[in-house]
């Protein structure tokens, strides 16, 4: 927005300014922004978007800071105020520019006081008397009287007071704070009322209210606010004073003038970190004020994702907004580049999260509302289901203890060689055939139940069926960390024992990653199936689920096999083929479920927010 707006008494001025009223926040983040940002992590760059994918883009902290700057400049432009004050006003109005302009027009003084920009007792300069140099604070003897020219300055950006003074009734001065090396009473040495320091070199520092303290106290105070309270609102320390320190003030108290370093490296570093944290808080506040934006939840990450198509609550009944901020890894091992595949394992894990809810992983294919319900159910019933999570079970044939140490569910008892399924404990022989129905719960038992006791047992059994499979995939995903490590070792071995190059053994890594991804999908399909109303649609859903699960188990088993050098070429072929197949099955599950949500095909056995209530079957 240009800054040539001139204040006009015409009240209709802003009503006519359609471009301003319609300036949606979303506009700031449209496609052509990508060039400016230099980053674009669209999910699909191969052309057509799949039903389970949606458009989003990722911003770094400085990208978001640029967006903030744009808004601030916009407000500076209309109000003709210092950018520090514009930032405080925007923060006060949760970055809603339209509301801010409206409120400002309505009662600027009230707004300025509420936003902590001006003190309430500050004499008000009505717009028509703008040129009269009043506004020195009554009753404040410590402060020098402000000069008229200072009063009429409008931030460092405006080239001179002659520039149309726009509409600043009360906001004064260029300097959003004042270091007062000499005050009218400079003959009296300054004693800081907080730390009681009175060395001659001590300089009083104050916001516009004139409540002066030494810079050390300001720094300590700001550090306590930012680091201990995580608060970006730094109010003046004066009792009952509501003025808020602008960012430039905070900066000047934390980052010393390069010509006058404080000379204490440890303190300088701590202050530098406080400033960094403060900047992060500013960005977080901006992001949380904007429905189109979400801050990456991964620890240590400062990226932001924009996903306007998932910003409304309504949209969350038809899409699962899985997004990624583009970075990988955690903490110190983090890398900002999506291309950098890095190592396997946690260090290389992509920052995937849900834009629509607080779940910090990919919960496709199930929508947020149902995922949330399921997680709550799991929490409520955690005690009942705890035993399932254990890593050991008894062999159903000889009762010896068997430990699970990989992701694969095909178990062989070391003692009696009985082969069985870890999940349902049934013989494995049934799992390899078309009879495979480990994923399905037989509802008949529940229907036959007459008395309340057997009814509640049936409902627990039903829950445990789904929970068991859910938890198992979750556990397998955790065990996949081991699998990653083992796979890396295998890849190294393979290079030694075969003529394959590093590139050629990547098939193992690819397969492990695919298995991991599909287990996530499978996990959430059980949450979905638990709430799906029985019928044709559920049967089809479970067919797809079964096909994916079977494919994943097959691939998982291949990956855990002993590798004989002469078998490597065959293994490579098999694994590569299976990986492609698994990928396809996963896509079918995701695509069909997503399409079903768009078509409104899925019916639930409980009432879910935003969906039709289930037909009463009782």
């Amino acid at each position, binding site marked *: 927005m240009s800054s040539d707006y001139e204040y006009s008494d015409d009240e209709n001025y802003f009503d006519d300014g359609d471009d301003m009223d319609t300036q949606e926040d979303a506009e700031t983040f449209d496609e052509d922004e990508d060039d400016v940002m230099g980053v674009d992590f669209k999910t699909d760059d191969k052309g057509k978007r799949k039903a389970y994918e949606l458009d989003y883009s990722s911003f770094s902290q400085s990208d978001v800071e640029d967006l903030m700057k744009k808004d601030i400049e916009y407000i500076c432009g209309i109000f003709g105020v210092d950018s520090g004050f514009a930032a405080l006003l925007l923060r006060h109005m949760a970055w809603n520019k339209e509301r801010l302009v409206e409120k400002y027009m309505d009662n600027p003084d009230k707004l300025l006081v509420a936003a902590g920009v001006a003190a309430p007792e500050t004499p008000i300069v009505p717009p028509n008397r703008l040129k009269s140099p009043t506004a020195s604070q009554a009753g404040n003897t410590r402060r020098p009287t402000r000069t008229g020219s200072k009063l009429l300055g409008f931030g460092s950006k405006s080239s001179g007071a002659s520039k149309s003074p726009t509409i600043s009734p009360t906001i004064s001065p260029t300097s959003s704070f004042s270091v007062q090396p000499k005050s009218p009473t400079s003959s009296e040495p300054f004693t800081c009322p907080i730390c*009681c320091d009175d060395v001659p070199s001590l300089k009083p520092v104050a916001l516009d209210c004139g*409540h002066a*303290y030494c810079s050390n106290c300001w720094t*300590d*105070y700001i550090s*306590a606010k930012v680091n201990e309270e995580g608060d970006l609102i730094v109010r003046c*320390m004066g009792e*009952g004073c509501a003025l808020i320190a602008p960012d430039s003030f905070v900066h000047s108290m934390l980052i010393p003038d390069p010509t006058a370093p404080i000379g204490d490296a440890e303190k300088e570093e701590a202050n530098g970190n406080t400033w960094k944290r403060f900047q992060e808080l500013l960005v977080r506040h901006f992001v949380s004020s904007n429905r189109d934006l979400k801050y990456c939840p991964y620890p240590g990450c400062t990226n932001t994702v924009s996903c306007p198509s998932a910003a409304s609550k309504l949209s969350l009944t038809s899409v699962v907004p899985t997004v990624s901020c583009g970075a990988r890894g955690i903490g110190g091992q983090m890398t900002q580049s999506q291309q950098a595949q890095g190592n396997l394992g946690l260090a290389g894990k992509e920052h995937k999260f849900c834009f629509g809810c607080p779940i910090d992983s990919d919960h496709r294919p199930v929508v947020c509302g149902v995922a949330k319900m399921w997680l709550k159910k799991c929490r409520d019933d955690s005690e009942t289901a705890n035993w399932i999570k254990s890593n050991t079970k008894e062999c159903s044939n000889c009762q010896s203890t068997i430990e699970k140490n990989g992701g694969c569910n095909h178990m062989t008892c070391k003692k009696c060689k009985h082969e069985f399924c870890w999940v349902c404990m049934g013989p494995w022989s049934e799992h390899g055939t078309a009879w495979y129905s480990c994923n399905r719960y037989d509802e008949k038992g529940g229907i036959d139940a007459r008395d309340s006791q057997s009814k509640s047992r049936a409902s627990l059994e039903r829950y445990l069926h789904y929970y068991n499979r859910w938890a198992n995939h979750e556990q397998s995903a955790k065990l996949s960390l081991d699998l990653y490590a083992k796979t890396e070792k295998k890849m190294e071995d393979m290079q030694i024992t075969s003529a394959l190059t590093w590139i050629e053994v990547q098939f193992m890594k690819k397969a492990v990653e695919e298995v991991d991804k599909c287990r996530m999908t499978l996990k959430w399909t059980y949450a979905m199936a638990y709430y799906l109303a029985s019928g044709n649609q559920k049967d089809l859903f479970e067919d797809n689920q079964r096909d994916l699960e079977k494919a994943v188990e097959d691939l998982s088993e291949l990956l855990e096999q002993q590798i004989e050098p002469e078998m490597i070429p065959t293994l490579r072929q098999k694994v590569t083929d299976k990986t492609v197949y698994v990928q396809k099955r996963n896509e079918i599950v995701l695509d069909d479920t997503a399409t079903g949500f768009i078509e409104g095909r899925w019916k639930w056995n409980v009432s879910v927010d935003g969906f039709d209530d289930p037909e009463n079957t009782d």
Partner: protein
Amino acid sequence: MASISAKRLAKELKEIQTEGCPVGVNLLRADDFQTWLFSIEVMGESLYKGEVQTLQFRFDSNYPISSPAVQFLVRENEGIRAPIHPHVYSNGHICASILGTEWSPVLSVVAVCVTLQSMLASCKKKERPVDNDRYVLHAPENPKKTQFHYDDDTV
């Protein structure tokens, strides 16, 4: 170098010793810069006529940037109890915004004493906070760890 809190408290102490405390407030103990004790008495007509309360201040090294932990001293076996007041819990903890969100580093120990004295003086009905039993059962040792909800902004 002495910490800010030591320097500041030394100055406050000196002021108390040279200028004295306001009427009804007396310094009982200030042996170090960690814990101070005051006695507080409401002068004139009030519901607390004839009662003397003991107020305890605890300071950390960040005082006065961070607020002091202030509470009425309670020693059941010595018969020292917290005054009965709608903002004072039976364990001595006080729900007053000046000790929490409204704390300002320019406030002093004496200023807090005076504020609490007038809090008692203006009391209309001697009663415990409605949630007293529930709060006291789970209250942290240090009242600063409690996030009080200030329903009455007169204190």
